[in-house]
């Protein structure tokens, strides 16, 4: 029998933890997005006419959302599971009648929820600066959810793997953010020299941003199917890793 009560308890506990830093959670995406618009959208954007038939300020909206959603997912989920490990309160989770899947749903669900909220906030902020006309709203939400969940899973893995706070902070900073910047948040991959275009294809974030941007403007760096396949692949890799962690008790049980 599924312990729904426990899933709900973990989920609400995590949401409450995030609520304690609510001001910061809301303010920082709104402020940073506004800054990006001022710097990239207005200052630089005024010199770039259009990218793929879309004004530059509008063009960067999907990328901006993805950038925040990616880093938020990873950070939230990794902290969520690392904190009880660090504080030693994990004993209670381990001794409770909860399956690993239920633990995962609780933590990853909460982290993904917060990312989706942040993503929505950025979208709302963006409408203050540019006119948005989302071509495929269903797909937009689909990408937003899928990305939040996939990268929250990645964050969960990082939170289990990490044995100090530095590792938790360094991954979003040194891996996720650069991948997001280089993944076409602020430009189209097609604007790069051919060699860099090829290299960029190894960056999983390219497929996310491309698919997400397609849902906004119907233009993409790679085809929708390729995007979907790549994201699914990444999701499967994360799930398999989590499964392995749970099977072996890696870093959970001595």
């Amino acid at each position, binding site marked *: 029998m599924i312990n729904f*009560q426990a899933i709900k308890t973990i989920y609400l506990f995590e949401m409450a933890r995030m609520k304690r830093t609510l001001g910061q959670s809301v303010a920082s995406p709104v402020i940073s997005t506004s800054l990006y618009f001022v710097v990239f959208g207005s200052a630089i954007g005024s010199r770039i006419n259009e990218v793929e038939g879309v004004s530059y300020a509008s063009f960067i909206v999907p990328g901006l959302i993805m950038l925040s959603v990616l880093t938020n997912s990873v950070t939230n989920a990794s902290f969520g599971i690392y904190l009880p490990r660090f504080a030693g309160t994990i004993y209670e989770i381990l001794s409770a009648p909860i399956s690993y899947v239920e633990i995962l749903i609780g933590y990853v669900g909460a982290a993904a929820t917060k990312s989706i909220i942040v993503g929505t906030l950025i979208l709302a902020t963006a409408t203050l600066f540019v006119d948005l006309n989302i071509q495929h709203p269903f797909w937009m939400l689909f990408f937003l959810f899928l990305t939040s969940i996939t990268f929250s899973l990645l964050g969960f893995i990082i939170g289990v793997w990490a044995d100090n706070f530095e590792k938790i902070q360094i991954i979003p900073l040194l891996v996720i953010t650069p991948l997001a910047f280089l993944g076409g948040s602020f430009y189209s991959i097609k604007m790069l020299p051919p060699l860099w275009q090829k290299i960029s294809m190894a960056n999983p974030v390219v497929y996310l941003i491309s698919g997400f941007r397609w849902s906004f403007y119907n233009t993409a760096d790679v085809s929708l199917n390729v995007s979907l396949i790549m994201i699914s692949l990444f999701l499967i890799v994360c799930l398999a890793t989590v499964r392995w962690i749970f099977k072996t008790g890696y870093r959970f049980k001595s």
Partner: protein
Amino acid sequence: MKNNSIIEIKQLCKTYAGGFKALKSVNLKINKGEIFALLGPNGAGKTTMISIICGISNPSEGQVTVGGHDILSDYKKTRSLIGLVPQELNTDAFESVWNTVCFSRGLFGKKPNPQYIEQLLKDLSLWDKKDNPMMTLSGGMKRRVMIAKALSHEPEVLFLDEPTAGVDVELRKDMWQQVRKLREAGVTIILTTHYIEEAEEMADRVGVINQGELILVEEKDQLMQKMGSKKLTIELSENHQKLPSSLSSFNLELNKNILTYNFDSKKEDSGICSLLEELVKNNIRFNDINTQKSSLEEIFVALVHKQ
């Protein structure tokens, strides 16, 4: 067939990743409704054993059942029967007492029950602290919150891993009062402690573990009786060099004005009466007399050293 054991441990072994053997084929049955005290020096394997039963640590070999269910294949059933108060005081620093206790209940899949939690906090004298963040509590208070957390889901078995470490005398008494009440309510209690007088005072049965091996399990009273010879100490009014020959039939030791008499309290005639009569007859006056059981502590030290 009547089976009144609630926990059965069969040939339980634990080898840690580094190759260290913390438990070496432990066999133990815990009876329903009893208070079982697990004694052992630091590093004996007490916490390891508890961690395995509760699901925090994986067993290397052997089998454990709780309430007839296997702890691995039926973990949801076994864990919902168990409440654990761990040795370490690990808490969420920013959470309030109330939230942290309700969180525990939820984790165990129980519907919220504010009345029950309220009563629990009142019983543990924590009610006035219910809205305080954990980090503002003293060590003893935190310990009580840990107990409240463990009891929040109304378990049938309660593990107390050194519950009175860092708890003052007053509170310790309260705590034992609580434990007795729980036992009366039918909860089985397994506790570890270094304070042997606690085991002596509280436990129905005592297990002694040393270097991963359970070296003794016995009813406490029997253990005390079996190993407990008694000692009578008489403080004489003045120093004596020698005792009158009529006292030589007693097993006596004299050191200045302290006379000690070793006897077996289980014997029909302890010999105390005739000893005292003999003293009076010989006009040896005394100020004070005092009898002592050899404590569990002495028994324990003797056992561990014999190993």
